[in-house]
């Protein structure tokens, strides 16, 4: 799952990078193109403005001449005497330096009607007129311009115009020779880049002027395709922006080719840099992902697998795993490990305690059904019968019967203190008769205590010890069993007036209580363990002894808590 997630994230990131890359390139190049287009537009419009201004000026003068020719009878005349000397034209030429000469011809005869003072006298052959004459005759309402000619290091164009002179009584053609050099030269001040150039052409796409060396058919095709406006074109592996305009006051159009290779080069550089950055970030991202996977994702997965293994099998089979990863993960693993160890320990304790309890009970039972005790008792009964002490024999049989009945107690573990006392009383009766009244006994119990529930057969081992070890063939021994409540505790004491035991022996016994390896066979340990299992840590067995005076063993049983309450 971890690996799959990593591949997914990587795929998403790479996809995202590519999308960002594409968008960025698109936005940038369109912005760059737009920027260059704007710059180009400003440039070309400036060039166009120069042209239009030039032709507008010329047109204004042409109109003034036309008006003057119309209204002034003396300016243009086929009557030589009336004709003015051309001062009007000379004045215009003096002011407008781009006008070289002004001549007026008769439309019908082609003869020269008026001229500036510098021009030579000539005439037009009306049967075979030049282009400028014909076009003015055809398009009577507009200024007609001829194509640019080059001679003597200057460029020239001819303007021809139909006009009426003498209030419309005489039709004529005005011809102005214009110097186009200044306008041509102004183009060289504009930077169109390598191979950039300008073409002026008429509406039939015939060349009027080009700043380039040639006007090829392929170029003409480009112009015809675009007609007007801006278009990106490629010529000889160079990128150009082609802009075409109409030139006002003329039937001409202008095309400008601006080299924009620089824009493309910038675009390419930008695209390469962006692509490299994207690629690098992809690589960096995958590296980070792998790192993340090895320090976080994988250790977590390992931990999860370890947990799953424990869930599916036995807690006790838990084996600590060492997981390498980031600090957090390692700490988590340590905590988990500690927790599992604690659980394992607790579980083992529970199991052990249960085992011990069973062992103790089994032990207690086997103690009671000790065959020697039974044989000895039965031997004693036989002896009593032989002696003819039938009453005593009867008492003993009765006591034995009661003793075993309570021992078994229908399999119950807990019995009232009353029954436990009855049990010990029967035991004492039997033992007293067996040992021929070598000891006496007393049983005292507070009546309130008789209904308390206690674990059964808990007193018998203590009393047995008192008889065998405490009194030990001593004459006139006394065994006292005292049951009383003290605070929250029920206390069962067994006192003898025997030899007593040394403090060393007491310490030894107490030590054996908590040491599972030692079992001294005295039975006290068994009692102690049963009390602890049933009543918890508050239960205890107290041993007090004074040498030659006697020993007191007290069982301390808490009235609340322990297994007693839960059952």
């Amino acid at each position: 799952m971890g690996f799959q997630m990593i591949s997914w994230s990587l795929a998403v990131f790479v996809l995202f990078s590519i999308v960002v890359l594409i968008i960025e390139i698109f936005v940038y190049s369109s912005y760059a193109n737009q920027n260059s287009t704007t710059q180009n537009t400003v440039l070309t419009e400036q060039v166009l403005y120069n042209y239009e201004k030039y032709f507008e000026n010329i047109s204004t003068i042409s109109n003034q001449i036309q008006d003057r020719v119309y209204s002034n009878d003396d300016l243009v005349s086929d009557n030589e005497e009336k004709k003015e000397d051309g001062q009007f034209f000379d004045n215009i030429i003096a002011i407008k330096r781009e006008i070289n000469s002004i001549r007026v011809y008769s439309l019908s005869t082609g003869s020269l009607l008026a001229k500036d003072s510098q021009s030579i006298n000539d005439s037009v052959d009306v049967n075979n007129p030049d282009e400028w004459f014909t076009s003015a005759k055809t398009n009577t309402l507009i200024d007609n311009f001829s194509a640019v000619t080059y001679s003597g290091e200057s460029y020239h164009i001819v303007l021809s115009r139909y006009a009426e002179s003498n209030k419309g009584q005489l039709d004529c053609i005005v011809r102005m020779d214009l110097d186009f050099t200044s306008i041509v030269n102004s183009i060289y001040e504009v930077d169109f880049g390598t191979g950039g150039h300008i073409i002026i052409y008429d509406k039939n796409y015939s060349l009027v002027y080009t700043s380039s060396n040639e006007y090829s058919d392929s170029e003409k095709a480009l112009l015809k395709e675009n007609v007007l406006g801006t278009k990106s074109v490629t010529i000889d592996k160079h990128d150009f922006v082609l802009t075409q305009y109409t030139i006002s006051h003329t039937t001409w159009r202008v095309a400008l080719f601006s080299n924009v290779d620089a824009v493309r080069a910038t675009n390419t550089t930008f695209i390469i840099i962006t692509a490299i950055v994207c690629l690098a970030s992809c690589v960096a991202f995958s590296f980070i992902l792998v790192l993340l996977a090895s320090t976080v994702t994988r250790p977590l997965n390992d931990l999860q697998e370890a947990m799953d293994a424990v869930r599916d099998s036995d807690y006790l089979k838990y084996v600590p795993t060492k997981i390498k990863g980031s600090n957090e993960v390692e700490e988590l693993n340590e905590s988990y490990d500690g927790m599992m160890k604690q659980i394992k320990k607790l579980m083992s304790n529970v199991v052990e305690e249960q085992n011990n309890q069973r062992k103790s009970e089994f032990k207690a039972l086997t103690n009671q059904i000790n065959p020697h005790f039974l044989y000895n008792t039965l031997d004693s009964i036989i002896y009593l019968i032989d002696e003819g002490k039938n009453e005593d024999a009867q008492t003993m049989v009765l006591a034995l019967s009661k003793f075993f009945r309570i021992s078994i107690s229908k399999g119950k573990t807990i019995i009232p203190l009353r029954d436990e006392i009855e049990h010990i009383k029967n035991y004492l009766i039997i033992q007293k008769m067996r040992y021929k009244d070598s000891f006496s006994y007393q049983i005292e119990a507070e009546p309130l205590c008789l209904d308390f529930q206690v674990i059964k057969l808990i007193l018998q081992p203590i009393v047995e010890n008192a008889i065998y070890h405490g009194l030990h063939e001593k004459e006139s021994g006394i065994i006292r069993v005292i049951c009383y409540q003290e605070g929250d505790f029920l206390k069962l004491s067994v006192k003898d007036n025997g030899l007593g035991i040394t403090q060393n022996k007491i310490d030894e016994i107490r030590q054996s209580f908590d040491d599972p390896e030692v079992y001294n066979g005295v039975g006290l340990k068994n009692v102690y363990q049963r009390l602890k299992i049933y009543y918890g840590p508050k239960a205890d067995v107290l041993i007090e002894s004074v040498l030659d005076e006697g020993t007191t063993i007290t069982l301390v049983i808490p009235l609340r808590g322990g297994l007693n309450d839960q059952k």
Partner: protein
Amino acid sequence: MTKNKLLIICSSLSVLLSGCKQVQKKIGIFLYNSNDTFITELNSYLTEKLKISYDYKVFDAQESQVSQNEQLLSVLREDYSCLLINTVDRLASSAIIEKCSAKNLPLIFFNREPLSEDIQGKEDIYYVGTSASIAGEYQAEMAFDLFVKNKALDPVYDRNKDGRIQTVVIKGEKGHQDAEQRTKSSTNRLRDLLISALGDNGEDRLEILSVESADWMRSKGQNVMKNMYTEYGDKIELVLSNNDDMAVGAIDYLLGNEKYMEQISSKTRVFLPIFGVDATDVGRGAIANGYLAGTVLNDADGQASAISALVDYELGNKDLSDFPYEFTDGNRIYIDERKLTKDTL
């Protein structure tokens, strides 16, 4: 039964859908300059008629052919069905026609006539305007009627009583077909009428003092009149203006000239006769006030009607054989004009 219900639902649905889907065709209107009174008037008539069944957009070139070309190029990138073009420079028409031919758009030029060679024989290219020469002739006839009483020049108007009319012409934009032809036809016609009525006394009955252009504009008309009046003063007996705006400009000048106005009020002298063309609202107002002697109704409404009819025929793919207007040279429509004086207002 269920079949019928289904049919009703289907048919009503289709009616509903077709109602929603009816996208109006877009028409582009290109004006050379929205400050031109006559053009604005023509445009309002035009849009009034077009808005009924079309979606239209008006572009104002503000006298820049570069701007108009830009506007046309922007429109070609969109989905327009027909373009109505009033060019800034009529010589640009050929490039416009060429550029639009790729899209097969019907083009209707108006007011500014493309060169004959540019539209001759072209399909779906039209021109709607007026016959410029007739406007000039009408202007001349109105002036003749005003000046000639009982086969002689009325001395009220021929104030120097030399038997000639000293005339100045305020011309429209140079190179505009209307300006050129109105000037030519009005002066020629007036000259011819005078000679035939009064006879040739060896001299021209019409003396043109000056011809100056005021680019169709009222403000420039005022300037031109100022120049002329400064130069010729009371010698001027008649003003022929190529349109009303320039004529009203000339009136503006005279009304503002205190010396002139004093003369008018003190002596029993009539206001200088000025004739215009177009019959714009301002022009009509000037006639009503008695300052403008007459104008020729350049029928803006009629031209707008012809244009919108052409649009309907072109976009409706109708056969032009029953078209209500007469074509000249195959694709040009010239709307008739009418004389307009105080009497016929």
